């Protein structure tokens, strides 16, 4: 026991002594901040400069232009239609001096047809669709003799207060918060499991290539060594989370002040500071530890069966791919957290560590599913660790070429 403790301490102390640990610890939150910021920017698409080519004989063009200007995400200028206007505007767009132009005619009011030409038609459509509709609706109503004030009152926006009913209690969590929480938990789980799993692998490989492992296993069992290693690296990851947690809390409280949701326009609200409950945190840590233990056992086996960094990089691919697939499927889970696919993924132990917390954050979950998923995960950890330890035990003393699958099976079978 004393020896396992010494292995844990060495892994922990040597790792947090490196410059890279502290760079990661300090830059990690910053990096997530940048991702958050970029996601906002992508959602918002920035301010677009467009021209409204007004071919109408009524003030409809004017109304549309005003409505567009009011959104804040579009700066619109009205130009009367004329010969050559389209061509010169097209040149402007090509020269990147203009994002695009909208062509409206008198027919637009009745048919609802308008034309937009621009460099990014997707962003253009996202930004224009709603304001143009608004303006046209107002004009049509006025034409039908409705008082503009009535129109204004009728068009009073709905403020939909969303409250997630989860675990039998009502939380103050908005839909956007649920989404961003699920999204971030997914990213962090994926990154951390992969990163620290690979840490375990390179630690195993270092001891193997320097042959120091031979001295070590002459005084403690290979399993004890592997266990100490996994727990030591695991402790580093928890420490890293603590730093991130503290730093993140600090950054977010600083940020929450000036940047209230009303100021952040449109889809930027998707990324709101999530409310993390105690249960969510516990679930996150439980699945992180489960996922880490499961994957790091496999990464340890991969390190043990390889003789060089290069071999290890190749051999780890099947393991890493399982994680990547779980991560990628997260986006499908977010769309429909209760689909058959989602339920399956959260029960399969190799994807559960990412899938389950994501589903939990995105919507409510029956308790038995969590119990079942955790049960399967724990059993898989025991099974996978047993197999990995046997590969490890043989592998750490092997030199020469990497074993094929049949040899691996023989390693597992050797007493």
């Amino acid at each position, binding site marked *: 026991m*004393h*020896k396992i403790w*010494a292995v844990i301490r060495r892994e922990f102390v*040597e790792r947090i002594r490196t410059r890279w640990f502290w760079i990661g610890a300090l830059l990690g939150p910053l990096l997530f901040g940048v991702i958050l910021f970029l996601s906002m920017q992508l959602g918002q698409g920035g301010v677009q400069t467009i021209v409204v080519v007004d071919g109408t004989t009524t003030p409809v063009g004017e109304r549309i232009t005003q409505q567009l200007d009011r959104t804040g995400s579009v700066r619109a200028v009205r130009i009367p239609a004329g010969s050559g206007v389209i061509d010169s505007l097209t040149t402007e767009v090509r020269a990147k001096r203009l994002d695009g132009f909208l062509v409206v005619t008198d027919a637009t009011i009745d048919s609802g047809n308008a034309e937009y030409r621009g460099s990014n038609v997707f962003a253009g459509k996202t930004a224009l669709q709603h304001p143009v509709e608004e303006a046209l609706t107002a004009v049509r109503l006025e034409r039908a003799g409705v008082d503009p004030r009535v129109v204004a009152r009728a068009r009073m926006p709905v403020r939909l207060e969303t409250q997630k009913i989860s675990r039998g209690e009502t939380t103050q969590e908005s839909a956007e918060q649920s989404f961003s929480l699920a999204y971030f938990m997914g990213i962090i789980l994926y990154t951390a499991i992969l990163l620290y799993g690979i840490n375990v692998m390179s630690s195993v490989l270092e001891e193997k290539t*320097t*042959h*120091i492992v031979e*001295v070590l296993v002459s005084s403690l*069992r290979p399993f004890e060594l592997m266990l100490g290693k996994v727990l030591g690296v695991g402790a580093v990851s928890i420490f890293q989370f603590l730093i991130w947690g503290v730093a993140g809390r600090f950054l977010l409280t600083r940020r929450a002040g000036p940047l209230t949701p009303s100021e952040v326009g449109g889809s930027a609200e998707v990324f709101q500071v999530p409310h993390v409950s105690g249960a969510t945190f516990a679930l996150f840590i439980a699945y992180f530890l489960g996922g880490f233990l499961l994957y790091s056992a496999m990464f340890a086996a991969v390190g043990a069966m390889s003789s060089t960094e290069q071999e290890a990089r190749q051999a780890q691919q099947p393991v890493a791919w399982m994680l990547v697939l779980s991560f990628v499927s997260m986006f499908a889970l977010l769309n429909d957290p209760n689909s058959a696919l989602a339920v399956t993924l959260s029960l399969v132990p190799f994807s559960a560590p990412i899938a389950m917390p994501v589903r939990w954050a995105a919507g409510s979950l029956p308790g038995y599913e969590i119990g079942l998923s955790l049960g399967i995960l724990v059993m898989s950890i025991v099974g996978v660790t047993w197999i990995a330890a046997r590969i490890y035990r043989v592998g750490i*003393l092997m030199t020469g070429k990497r074993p094929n699958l049949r040899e691996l099976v023989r390693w597992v079978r050797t007493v």
Partner: protein
Amino acid sequence: MTSPSPTPILTLDRVSKHFAGHTAVDELSLSVPRGVIYGLLGPNGAGKTTTIRMIMNILEPDGGAVEVFGEPDGGRAHSERIGYLPEERGLYRKMRVLDVLVFLGEMKGIDRRRARQQAEGWLERLGLGQWRLRRVDDLSKGMQQKVQFISTVLHDPDLLILDEPFSGLDPVNAQVMKDTVLELRSRGKTILFSTHIMEQAEKLCEQLCIIARGRKLVDGALSDIKRTRSGHHLVIGFDGSLGGAAQVFADKELVSKVDNYGQYAELELAAGADPQQILQRLVTSGARLSKFELQEPSLNKIFIDLVGPEAVRA
């Protein structure tokens, strides 16, 4: 040297180890008395490292039993009392020298404080005192060898198991290693070491075991082994004239094997041959002799005779 105490510190009883396709160690039995320097000798690939790994529980024997300190479990359970230096050596390159030594001391089972004290003492003693807070990477290869050796002895073990301890050492470190081994021996420690270099073994070992292809060829005290093989080995020095020496050496009735250097020759007598007869025939053939001596064979000679020239070349 004192005679070894009767209870062996280490015994192997018909220990075997098979790997896919070949037998590395085949029913090997040996016993290492307390307080001696014991040589495990054999050509490369004889099974020395496999044997040592089985003693240390790094490999599990397929058959047979290993007893260390009179107990049936192997070396791992006694790591606090065993210093083990494997053939392939390495250290954590990025750790500080002192930290590596403390960690490896802890692995043997001693506490941090004692490990630190011992490590600092040894570092001073081997002239590495001012390097103790440097990274292993910063040390020269020779210095790293010293650190590896310190890691083997810092917990003051009763039994040292050294696999090819002199291989790769520079002459200075080889000397340090030899002196330390002898010093430990004088303090009553037992040293088992493997080597394929017979000159070294001959100077250091009191007891030995020669193995080849996983089997034991001979074991026991070096003096006994030499004695049972003496009386057949004749060393002849010529003083200018060889006379009819060539014909005498070619006589299969007298000489079974000859190693002729011109002015010097080593002969293996044929069974039942009388050395006096060889002397007489040489003198009558006109050879002038400066030396005519019946010798104990060198360990190297015994080794080559036993193992066969093929195995040595391997």
